[in-house]
């Protein structure tokens, strides 16, 4: 067995970068004070939390006071959606979203639907893009919030956020975007981009799990989910996850450096080599999601005539960590709702494969995948009643 290990599931989570971990470690046993305490122990940590907030704000060109730390991306999504719905319930009760949102958004919006809100779930095209004109028509007099993900986790498609945000602004509708996949990988400037609320998660950009952030544009009011000691400007009570927050700040600094230095472009070049290589070496395969409006680290495919879980398991034995939207990997009856929303048939969606690159992915890793994947596909197709040849 080959001993090479190639982790290609950075969309699920990234490792914590060494530089990030080193900045976090003192906050467990040395700098353990509660940042809300007024003594030296507390003050020291408070200033580190403030620095981290400034770092995360800098990544978005936001004001530090516009950044709230949460217990992760899902919580930030919930806070944005429920928080706006509650504050504006007198103004209107209509919320717009899309069929391919992460469950943290989709299920939260559906939950609002059960609370008496009116919900519009927009379709997407075959490349996963929301049609801006369809979006425009969905906005009504009583619409209070639209929430559209910046980039999709399963297929990597980057949405026309600016256009949709502009429509919202013209109509006095608040606009939230779940940027968990995009933040730290694509330049985002909230001074320039018409978004009111934006979700981020540290563990998608080489920071720790269990810490997220919500950007809330100055002047936008939301209600808290968690009541208590009034931390995070009264919007997210609970003693701060100081090590996590410091880690998020360090991760944001790292992400800003990677974007500014053009390191992201190298990742994009490797991604394109992977996409082109898979499409040319594996017959009856296709890219899912948009080819160019796409996350720089994201490659996703449908490999016809075989099933995703079988492919993942064989890749795993070859030392390659990947993911799939097949029913067997999701543990549900249906394959990925994202792929189905893009119009793929069930059998094709069962053969989905996602390979997401990371900052340490090398040319050699891509070569290795391109060497290992075709024979695995060929072997499984030889067992398939649908088609024999890879």
């Amino acid at each position, binding site marked *: 067995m080959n001993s090479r290990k190639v982790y290609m599931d950075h969309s*699920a989570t990234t490792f914590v970068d060494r530089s990030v971990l080193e900045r976090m470690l003192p906050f467990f046993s040395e700098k353990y004070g509660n940042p809300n305490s007024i003594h030296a122990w507390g003050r020291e940590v408070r200033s580190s939390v403030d620095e981290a907030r400034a770092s995360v704000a800098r990544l978005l060109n936001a004001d530090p006071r516009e950044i709230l730390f949460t217990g992760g991306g899902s919580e930030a999504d919930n806070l944005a959606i429920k928080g706006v719905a509650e504050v504006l319930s007198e103004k209107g009760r209509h919320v717009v979203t899309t069929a391919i949102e992460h469950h943290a958004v989709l299920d939260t919006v559906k939950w609002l639907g059960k609370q008496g809100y009116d919900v519009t779930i927009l379709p997407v095209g075959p490349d996963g893009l929301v049609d801006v004109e369809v979006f425009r028509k969905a906005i009504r007099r009583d619409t209070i919030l639209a929430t559209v993900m910046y980039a999709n*986790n399963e297929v990597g498609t980057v949405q026309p956020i600016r256009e949709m945000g502009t429509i919202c602004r013209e109509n006095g509708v608040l606009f939230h975007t779940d940027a968990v996949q995009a933040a730290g990988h694509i330049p985002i400037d909230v001074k320039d981009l018409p978004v009111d609320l934006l979700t981020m998660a540290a563990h998608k950009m080489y920071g720790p799990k269990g810490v997220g952030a919500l950007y809330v544009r100055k002047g936008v009011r939301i209600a808290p989910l968690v009541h208590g000691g009034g931390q995070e400007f009264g919007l997210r009570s609970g003693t701060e996850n100081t090590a996590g927050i410091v880690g998020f700040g360090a991760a944001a600094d790292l992400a800003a450096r990677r974007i500014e230095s053009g390191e992201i472009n190298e990742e994009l070049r490797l991604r394109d080599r992977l996409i082109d290589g898979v499409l040319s070496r594996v017959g009856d395969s296709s890219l899912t999601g948009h080819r160019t409006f796409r996350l720089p680290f994201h490659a996703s495919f449908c490999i016809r005539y075989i*099933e995703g879980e079988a492919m993942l*398991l064989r890749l795993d034995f070859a030392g390659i960590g990947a*993911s799939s939207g097949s029913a*067997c*990997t*999701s*543990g549900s*009856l249906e394959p990925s709702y994202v792929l189905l929303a893009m119009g793929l048939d069930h059998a094709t969606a069962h053969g989905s494969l996602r390979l997401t690159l990371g900052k340490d992915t090398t040319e050699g890793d891509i070569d290795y995948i391109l060497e290992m994947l075709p024979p695995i596909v060929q072997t499984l197709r030889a067992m398939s009643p649908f088609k024999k040849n890879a």
Partner: protein
Amino acid sequence: MSMYNEKVIAAFMNPKNVGAMENPDGVGEVGNPRCGDVMKIYLRVEDERIVDIRFETFGCAAAIATSSMATEMVKGRTVEEALKLTNKDVANALGGLPPEKIHCSLLAEEGIHAAVEDYRRRLEGLPSLPPRHDAVCHHDLGEEEENRGA
């Protein structure tokens, strides 16, 4: 995926009796591409005994492992004995399957039964039945979880 035991993994990585068969005496195709599993079983029968058996499966690791195990279990047996094969026998021979994968062993049982049925229809000069791509998936036999994206 670590939920599979070593026997299941071994059967998945090195399955026996894989591939189509020329001029089989019976063919059974069961499952539903919508649900992500289709199993096709080919039989060669001499004097009511299964002298050769092949399978082609579109499906997860458990579907492939159960196909391999079920075909091994009935090879050399009479068709009457093959009809007595149950999904439990297949799952047990594999040292157990995760609850949400039990439907795969059921598919193997049905595939072999369908192939034997086809063999008997042919003996009587009846036409083959179309593939049994059930409208309903067997997945609901296992624990159902919500699809959670990462």
